[in-house]
């Protein structure tokens, strides 16, 4: 697996994991993979929702010890 840039949004209530991801996506290049770390259960739903709406790719999603790992790829 290629190296993903980590977006460590654990404990982030504001701006929160999705907003952190949106910011990181802007700075990334097409094809880059990012992995968001989040302790917010809601982000396991709202990150895939946003990724789908914009047309990026959801690579994987898992949870380990209360930390969600959401891996995405910038598609455009």
């Amino acid at each position, binding site marked *: 697996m290629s190296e993903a840039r980590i977006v460590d949004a654990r404990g982030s209530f504001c701006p929160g994991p999705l907003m952190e991801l949106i*910011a990181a996506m802007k700075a990334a290049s097409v094809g880059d993979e990012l992995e968001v770390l989040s302790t917010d259960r809601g982000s396991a739903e709202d990150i895939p929702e946003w990724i789908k709406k914009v047309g990026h790719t959801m690579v994987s999603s898992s949870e380990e010890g209360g930390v969600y790992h959401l891996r995405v790829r910038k598609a455009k």
Partner: protein
Amino acid sequence: MKRILIVGGGTGGTILANNLARRLRQEIDSARVSVTMLSASARHMYQPGLLYVAFGKMPASDLYADEKALLDPSIHFHVDPAESFDLDHNEVKAKSGKAYGYDYLAICTGSRPVLAAVPGLMENAHHVYTEEAATKTAEALRTFQGGRIAIVTGVPHKCPMVPLELTFMMYDYFKDRELLDKVSFTYTYPIGRIHSLENVAKWAAPEFDRMGVRYETLFNAKEVDGVKKRVHSEEGSVVEFDLLITVPPHKGMEVLEQNKLGTSGWIPTNRATLAMEGRDNVFVLGDTTNLPISKAGSTAHYEAEVLGENLARLATLGGAMRSYEGKVFCFIEAGKDRATYASFDYKNPPQPQPPSRAIHWFKLAYNRLYWNSVRGLL
């Protein structure tokens, strides 16, 4: 002698410098420690005041104080912006050509609005993130006779409360001018609710419903069409406007990017120690960090207090003791005469209280008390 160098004379840098001067009084007097600050300006701006300037409630001249007068006299202050950082040799070169050596470095150069990140935004939108822009916004609001107002928020941005505050304050402003029946508001927000803080979103949504403010979530502006007066989002939706108000996307300072200290000018920072990743004598605070917390004056303030204690120990005894726990406190103006607040950290979400006049008056008082706060008197 241990030399502490602070780059940036805003909220974080000023509180840190005064905190160190107080803790290290004896060491500074006996020339065992020195504290030097470099800044890009001789003036210090109280940025939250820009919101009031945009509504004609504060003269722009009230935004500023002389930075030197805010600093303890023992601090060596130079208006000499940093241009290159040689972290391997503990040296910062500034615009004057002078090199400043250090044993400990704190970087707190803040953030800047980058409207150019969204095509058409600069040409068509008003905002409140500089004195010039806030003054122009005041004029745009004053001469607006009715139509569609759209509020568009970029990511990341400084001060998470501004999108809501602008909306509440514009509503009250046009209510006072008896123009509400001629004005419509569309509030957009980048994520799936109307504010990043869930509890704040829960409180604000029914307020918006009551006010008739329409909202569109998952909206990240892609481009602004100034001819058709439309904002297109990354998500494929469109919002129309006659008056476009933006909370623009931000970046850290260009000089940090040029020096390869961090992508988009945000420096990778340890969330507990505030040390720059990979360095043990370079620290970062305020807007400039890449931490997933609000870019707010209160964040810079709490970080500066932790760093002040730790740097004072490092420069004397060696070994930092305190961790930053992600503390943030934000007032939220809920109109022209009511306000609430949100207080939270890495572990505890905020529980906003219903807005009250008392909190609004406290915020107005804080607008003045700020100068005592950065002096370290609060």
